[in-house]
């Protein structure tokens, strides 16, 4: 077993080893990258994980099927609702619970709002990584509106904990529809600023184009999913390939770019926000009446067996794998988190490029560290 000291010891004379993180402005959390540099050219990127490892998988083994859902809010906290959604769905799948139509629509609406909020935070944070401070505030202006909507209906702004097996925890707030419509209006009024501020900027384009190239084959081999893979031309949207809830009936496009560089990944996310807006527009006027929650037993017991459910979070494919022994708690839970697989491609993408390009690559992978460490 090699320790970190030995690893540093084996480097060639003249190499420079720098530690990016665990406290570093560009890693957005406690990610620790040990980077071997030759001049400013990257020779190797070695992630050291575990600074925020809480062993959520082990914790879930002692939580009941109603409780374990909410520990996943703390994984990818930017798409907390989508994580909860995946967990609720795997329980529903095992127990064959029919989710009422209203609950399904509410869940999808919330999913898409979460996705927009997550992408907006990413947009601001990534622009900040590249040295532009202003976009961060512009992104937060719209994101705050979404957070307010969330707060009103779910009671929380970030870790919503709104899903329960069989539906959602509470009905929509009466203001929900008007506030979402206001948000849509605001978004359409302001979205052009995103392009004007960042996308069209020649400095930004020069720093993004051709940087952090990831071919389609490599993306598949490294298990990259989500917008990061779609920037390489890999069609991998779970909402399209393995539709869940009511996604099958909705009109939206899977955004694909083929360039495979940071700019392509950037464009995918930016255009994906518009697709989410399209979904919300289709649903907001036709939320069906009825129950928001199916009737379930107080104590849930999953039948013996193995259950897997994938959803598309803002970062990629999140898989929840439950092995049940028939009890009230899962025997084993595995979360296939998108960030973990996406991170494994970072070394491949960054090797041979400059240190500044690593920031662009890392920014467009959209890493959320608790999602990687779990």
């Amino acid at each position, binding site marked *: 077993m090699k320790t970190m000291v030995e690893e540093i010891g084996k480097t060639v004379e003249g190499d*420079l*080893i*720098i530690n*990016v993180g665990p406290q*570093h*402005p*560009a890693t957005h959390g406690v990610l620790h990258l040990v980077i071997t540099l030759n001049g*400013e050219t990257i020779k190797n990127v070695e992630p050291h994980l575990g600074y925020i490892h809480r062993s959520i998988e082990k914790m879930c083994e002692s939580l009941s099927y109603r409780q374990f859902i909410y520990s996943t809010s703390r994984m990818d906290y930017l798409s907390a609702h989508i994580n909860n959604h995946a967990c609720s769905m795997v329980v529903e799948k095992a127990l064959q619970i029919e989710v009422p139509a209203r609950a399904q629509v509410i869940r999808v609406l919330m999913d898409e709002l979460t996705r927009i909020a997550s992408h907006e935070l990413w947009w601001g944070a990534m622009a*900040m*990584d*590249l*040295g*532009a*401070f*202003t976009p*961060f*505030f*512009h992104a937060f*202006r719209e994101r705050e509106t979404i957070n307010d909507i969330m707060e009103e209906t779910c009671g929380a702004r970030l870790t919503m904990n709104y899903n329960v097996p069989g539906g959602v925890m509470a009905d929509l707030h009466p203001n929900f529809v008007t506030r979402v419509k206001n948000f849509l209006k605001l978004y359409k009024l302001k979205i052009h600023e995103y392009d004007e501020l960042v996308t069209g900027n020649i*400095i930004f384009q020069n720093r993004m184009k051709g940087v952090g190239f990831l071919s389609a084959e490599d993306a598949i081999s490294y298990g990259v999913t989500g917008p990061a893979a779609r920037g390489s031309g890999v069609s991998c949207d779970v909402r399209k390939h393995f539709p869940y809830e009511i996604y099958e009936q909705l009109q939206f496009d899977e955004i694909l770019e083929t360039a495979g560089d940071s700019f392509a990944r950037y464009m995918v996310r930016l255009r994906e926000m518009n697709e989410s807006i399209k979904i919300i527009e289709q649903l907001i006027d036709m939320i069906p009446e009825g129950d928001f929650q199916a009737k379930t037993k107080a104590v849930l017991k999953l039948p013996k067996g193995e259950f897997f459910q994938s959803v598309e979070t803002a970062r990629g494919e999140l898989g929840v794998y439950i092995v049940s022994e028939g009890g009230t708690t899962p025997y084993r839970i595995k979360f296939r988190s998108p960030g973990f697989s996406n991170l494994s491609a970072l070394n491949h993408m960054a090797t041979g490029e400059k*240190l*500044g390009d*690593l*920031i662009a690559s890392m920014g467009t992978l959209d890493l959320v560290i608790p999602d990687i460490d779990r």
Partner: protein
Amino acid sequence: MFSLESLTTIVHIWLNKTFQPNLALLLEFVIVGVLAITLFAVLGLVLVLMERKVAAWIQIRLGPNRVGPKGMLQSLADTVKLMMKEGLTPDGADKFLFNLAPYIVMISAMMVLAPIGFAKGFQIWDINIGVLYVSAISSVSVIGILMAGWSSNNKYSLLGAMRSGAQMVSYELSVGLSILSIIVLTGSLSLNDIVLSQQNGWWIFKAHIPALISFVIFIIAVTAETNRAPFDLSEAESELTAGFHTEYSGMKFALFFLAEYINIFIVCAIGATLFFGGWMPLHIGSWEGFNHIMDYIPSSIWFFGKTFFLIFLIKV
């Protein structure tokens, strides 16, 4: 009429009358030194506040608004905070160079001030190779930055310093060449002569396309030379945390910070002198009446107005 030239003459005559010539000269040195430091301190405070307020306006937020009326005293409070802080020296650092570096950066920034004409007849040193002097001294600050990066014994600092060095050396060329076009037009290296040569119109209007091109090059290159965004590679917040001054704290950091703002002021002052006629009021060829009216505005206001306009241009 109000003029800074008469003020300096009065002081000069009075000093020479009261003391013997050598002592008078020495006293004049002291006065100039104190004035320069005061100017720097005030400039630092004003520029920081200006930047924060303008940035806040662009970023749809309020900016400093707690200390003093409309947050005017915020930068003063920050200065006090920085002075109270402990100036840490890392264990592995080269102590002598580490402590020397901020002073070199600061002193080189102060020295560039000498040949700049702030107003008509208000100039510290009318040196006949003024432009050459300015570009020579402003390159010295790179030594201070390299020194800071090397002596910190920090890899981020070293990378930042190397980037800064490489950037300054390469952009110095473009600055030199763009300045050269004005020197060719004027036929003199003295900054005073350059200002006087713009009596019947500023070079930016008078010299048409060559001056315009060199002005654009000048603005871009000095932005790079002062390490401002988008040329802030040496500080590259997101990659190198803070570049060459990662390890500095307290007043030593404040000196770097101040030197950066002073450098912005100086390059903008040089730009104003070369392209916008320094303290020379807006004159148009032979429109005697118009020129006369313009002369009523004091030359110092012309100078600072142009300089701050350029600072605004660089920052935004």
